[in-house]
């Protein structure tokens, strides 16, 4: 369940995670809101951080501008 497909498109689980980040949250919060296993959320958030869709500060993940736009598309 990677978050970014082979052609750069966001997967369903990526959209779920981005939607759950309306406010800064921990990986545990995202897992609870999306009903995804915690390991998938951690791996997915890392992937989206590499893609600069999400950033992390003090264990809280938040959307970047790109992440906000991508989540709405």
């Amino acid at each position, binding site marked *: 369940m*990677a978050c970014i497909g082979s052609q750069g498109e966001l997967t369903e689980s990526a959209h779920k995670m981005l939607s759950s980040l309306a406010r800064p949250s921990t990986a545990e919060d995202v897992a609870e809101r999306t009903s995804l296993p*915690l390991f998938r959320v*951690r*791996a997915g958030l890392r992937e989206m951080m590499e893609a600069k869709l999400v950033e992390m500060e003090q264990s809280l993940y938040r959307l970047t501008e790109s992440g906000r736009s991508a989540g709405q598309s």
Partner: protein
Amino acid sequence: MSSQDASSTPIPSHPAESTPASLPRLGMAAPPFEAVTTHGKIRLEDFRGSWLVLFSHPADFTPVCTTEFIAFAGIASELRRRGVELLGLSIDSPTSHIAWALNIKEKFGIEIPFPIIADSNKEVATLYGMLSPGESKTETSRCVFVIDPDGIVRAMIYYPLTTGRNTDEILRLIDALQTTDKHKVATPANWKPGEKAIVPPPTTLEEAEARLRSGLECTDWYFCKKAL
């Protein structure tokens, strides 16, 4: 070593070959890794806080492995209920894993809900000592590593290529380990949840004498059981 000696040393074709075959040890930290899986790139640390059953199989599209995958899929929800995640591994490509998972769904009606590591370069297999060259140099043995929420290796099972594993035993093993952690007890041979557990033997004479008056079910001072 002279420069001539150094130049004649074979250069490994990939990183895994430069790592000596190792075997994790019980009670030690599980070796960290990052691997390509059918669910994207996953690191061992992503499982921190959950129990993990990391298991290897010899190869995709083989009959015994197919029965095992169906069996592992069958206990996935029971494991999840116990806070345990599953992670498979073989020395195959992601494409092969995806095709095999789709084939199992099509032919047997079973969805594989857990990620499978595509360990084409044998990195994780080497790190965990999953290769048994006496059996096969290219296929991983049927290994199971139970890793606890703190990343510690708590149990290991090795089966040969010819023998499919018993998933009831894996569930029983998880139940036993979690019972030990929760109640500070040991579990006797063939123990099942609901049965009495063994109280660790006393380590002093005073404790041994007290144990016999403790109200526990004791056959002797060193052999006491209790209901949980």
